[in-house]
């Protein structure tokens, strides 16, 4: 399998604090990776760098063959727009736009809004019948599914989730994990930051961060299918 992401000796330094320290990591296309660790371990910093929203102080980040650690802000915006789909813990839907319009916002800044395509993305996450609802009229799980549809609409190389199930109850957590499973089956690369060990365990691979250092890299391929069955609907 080809490498979609590679971090080489990446550090992020704020004054005397090393938020990330000499991280080396490779992710293959189509992998499902969980990043775990306690608060302050550098998970969010790492995802910001992978998501082209921040740059490393030291080291290189190769995303789909491009060294994004050398790019300027404008290029990072373009790369993020083309290659990354972002999912947030707090959903961040625009409150005065309907579900389908929220999805179309991502299309607008990528290429051109296409309502039919946006409806298909919503159908993919099981929300076709809720497309005309405002975020306030949707449950937390439904809002997160709109967020996933928005992340998927531009066919990104990597789906990047920052605590995507952090604000969901167990039932909705299962639905979202099930969506990830289907996306993984379709070959989408998924990288998820999570505190939740159950969500962390369903990934193919899990890395553990502590004080900015990568202290463990666990291959969960053997238990991958079973864990999914337990957590999701599949």
């Amino acid at each position, binding site marked *: 399998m080809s490498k979609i992401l590679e971090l080489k000796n990446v550090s992020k330094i704020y004054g005397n604090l090393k938020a990330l320290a000499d991280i080396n990591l490779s992710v293959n296309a189509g992998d499902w990776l969980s990043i775990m660790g306690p608060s302050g371990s550098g998970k969010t910093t790492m995802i910001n760098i992978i998501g082209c929203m*921040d740059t490393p102080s030291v080291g290189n980040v190769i995303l789909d063959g491009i060294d994004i650690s050398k790019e300027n802000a404008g290029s990072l*915006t373009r790369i*993020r*727009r083309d290659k990354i789909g972002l999912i*947030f813990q707090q959903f*961040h839907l625009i409150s005065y736009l309907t579900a389908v319009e929220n999805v179309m916002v991502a299309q607008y800044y990528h290429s051109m809004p296409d309502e039919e395509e946006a409806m298909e993305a919503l159908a993919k996450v099981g929300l076709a019948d809720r497309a005309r609802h405002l975020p306030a009229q949707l449950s937390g799980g439904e809002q997160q599914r709109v967020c996933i549809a928005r992340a998927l609409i531009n066919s990104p190389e990597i789906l990047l989730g920052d605590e995507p199930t952090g604000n969901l109850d167990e039932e909705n957590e299962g639905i979202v994990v099930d969506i990830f499973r289907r996306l993984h089956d379709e070959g989408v690369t998924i990288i998820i930051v999570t505190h939740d060990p159950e969500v962390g365990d369903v990934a193919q691979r899990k890395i553990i961060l502590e004080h900015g250092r990568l202290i463990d890299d666990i291959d969960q391929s053997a238990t991958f299918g079973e864990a999914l069955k337990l957590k999701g609907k599949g």
Partner: protein
Amino acid sequence: MANDNKNSRPSEKQDAHDSFHSRVRGVALYGYDERYDRELKVYGANITVRHKDAALMSDLYGTGVNDKFLYEDDVLKLKSIFWGFNILDFAPMLDGNAIMTTNGKTSEVSLVGTWTEKHATLSTGEELSTGLKGLRTWWDVQGEWLNENDNASVMLGKLLASQNNIHVGDAITLTANGMSKNFIVKGIYNDGGNDDEKILMTLAAVQELMNLTGKVSSIEVSALTTPDNDLARKAAQDPRSLSPDEYETWYCTAYVSAICHQIQEVIRDGVAKAVRQVAESEGTILNKTTLLMILITILSSIGSALAISNLITASVIERSQELGLLKALGAYNWQIALLVLLEVMLTGLAGGVAGYFLGIGFAQIIGQTVFGSYIEIARMVILIVAVILFFVTLLGSVPAIRYLMALKPTEVLHGK
């Protein structure tokens, strides 16, 4: 050749150009400038026209000669000059002396013949009403104003009336040039000056009594004028010292010297002089009023810019998550800035339209309260307001745009 050129009427292009400048000046806050100028006309005439010889003697010895006259036929031509529209009121005056007999007493008195309220139709078809009544608005009149065609009545100055114990309705006899004629006292006026010792009559009556048909001694003119500047002062000394461009600018601006110059072009043997005290006081007051209005406008604009700045910045901070999200989704800084500016401009446009009409409303209230009439709205104001609005809004948006540019999606999207 140069003189011929100077004496000819300036080109239409120049007319339009200077008309624009004068309009822009007039625009100053819905034409308040002009309104103030009109208000200042209560101080009376600001230009006096006399026969050139009489004017020269007056300048040299402080007294005029009374055997040189202007022609009554020329008086209405005042409205035909380039700045005829700015001539608000005028009245020909004919001075004379007569022996007054009343209550068995005789005394020598000064007469003034004039138009009190002349109605005429100009060659252009324009209806005109002018006369001393409009130039002596401060007069306190007991009885009635003299009717324009009433050649058998007179008005007396208060001092003269009290010295001779004359009342409204009394009869007096005036004798001059061997002719005696009886008149009824229609009104007694209080001017507060030398005129209180005179008898005011119709121009025709004095002309008949003095045997000076068709003659007038002087013309008092009340004109709307632009405050003098260096160009006007230079021209007042000698218009021939101006370059052709300066001459055209001066001629097409309502400086008192330009209006005097144009009056002299139509009044035979006439010399028009500004009543400096009145003209300069008006100019000073107008300049200060204009300055005050400009300062108010500048302060209002600064206040608006600060208010807009606060509102936009507050709005952008409030929406920072949404705007950060758009950046995270791939929007460039300029796209976000454009989005916010567009929203601000549309809001500003709506506010500007509402403000414009509210402003007009307040202007009319002020016009009615202060001046007792409506304020004319200059169309140019719309354009100027739009431009000011655009730049004030743009200026007010700068801090918000700077904040937007520096906004990092990571700072607003990971709130736990």
